[in-house]
């Protein structure tokens, strides 16, 4: 992120802020959808993040940390949305994307199992997984973004990865059993 843009926005330059926001919007939206698994909630979380970012930008001490700071605001906004939306869980719209044709993940079964396993994770585990595996943050930055000790970040990712591994392995066992059943 251009430091000059951040500094200009910190001094009230709304055009500079818009440029920063537009540059970050799709990434923030992707992270929010992955954490919340809910399109309207993700849109609200991004909007809340941008509003808070504008309002509190003068308090950001190090402009170089803008992206990390924005991620933290987003995770907080996701937590707020998660709490808010649970009361209307029946209205939650599940994110379902059409399967891609190149099948990069490996198989439809993989995708379904990961989806199911991921959905069973706690929101704070999902946040850690998304920041680590999708955003590509090292453990220390995951911890900083989430405001937790590094050990906690490690354990969250560890448990989440194991849960997803178990989901995939369970699917593999089911597939083998089904194949054996069919061939018997």
């Amino acid at each position, binding site marked *: 992120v251009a430091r000059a843009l951040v500094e200009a926005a910190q001094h009230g330059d709304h055009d500079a802020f818009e440029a920063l926001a537009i540059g970050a919007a799709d990434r923030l939206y992707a992270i929010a959808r992955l954490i919340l698994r809910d399109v309207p909630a993700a849109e609200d979380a991004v909007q809340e993040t941008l509003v808070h970012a504008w309002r509190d930008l003068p308090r950001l001490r190090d402009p170089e940390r803008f992206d990390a700071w924005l991620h933290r605001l987003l995770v*907080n906004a996701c937590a707020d949305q998660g709490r808010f939306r649970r009361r209307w869980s029946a209205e939650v719209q599940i994110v379902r994307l059409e399967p891609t044709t190149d099948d990069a993940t490996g198989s439809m079964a993989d995708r379904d199992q990961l989806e199911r396993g991921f959905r069973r994770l706690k929101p704070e585990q999902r946040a850690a997984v998304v920041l680590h595996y999708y955003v590509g943050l090292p453990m220390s930055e995951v911890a900083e973004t989430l405001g937790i000790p590094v050990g906690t970040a*490690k354990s969250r990712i560890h448990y989440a990865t194991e849960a997803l591994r178990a989901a995939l392995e369970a699917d593999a066992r089911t597939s083998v059993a089904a194949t054996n059943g069919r061939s018997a």
Partner: protein
Amino acid sequence: MNGQRSVEERISLWLEEEAAGQLPDRVLDASFDQTRALRQRPGPSVWRSFLMSRPIPSLIAVGAAVIVFIVGVSFLRPGSDQGQVGGVAPTPTATPVDVTPTEGYSPPPERTPLPPPPPDTPFTSDRFGYDIRYPAGWTATPASGDWSLDTDRTDALTAHSDHFIDDRLAGDLQTFMTVWSTPLGGMTGDEWIRAYCTPPQDDPGWCDAGAATFKPIPVDGHDGQFSDGQAFIPVGDRMYVVTIWRPGNEPFLRQVLGTMTFHQPASTSPPAS
């Protein structure tokens, strides 16, 4: 094909697939409508420059204000069991509806931090060769295998360590403490710690102990050292490691280490002298 990809790769790929999409313009427009009408909050510069330009008078003023506030609160708020009987009705405090996520803001704690009870329940690890005490009411889960520097170093909560679990804690970090030992493999204690703390390529913050100042601590007559929540005790040709997974628990770590004794492990590695 899937078998050739690690679980981590499959997760990354799946997340990338799932993340495809653009934020609708209407969301950006609505955000900018709000921000254009919203004044920014001033930064901390005024307060900070006040403190930095006049440090001593400022500190005195701040200290006096804190004392006045504490005294005032203690006058206005009787003990919770006293309620309002015979006292001044407490003034309702305005609760800001709008939470301010500033740079130092972090989500509210997920659970109330509870000080660990004193360690009084004995635990013996034949695999690793030690005795220790942990708080009653916790669950001790012995390791499922031998701990290895090669394979377990980067796995924070590997099952190849003994886990001591505080069942009162909710969430995913019930493991409060882990303990393991492993052969030094010909290294000195310091060399082993350096090897343990060498960060993985993508994670400069791997080992807290690497950058911290160690403090010496005797454990069962052996020279141990600890930093933050992790203690290293070389005993004979083995290294014993005790890790507390919650910060700010040095007194508890000291208590636990005070109960620790070593004996020959049942594993195939050479016995500790």
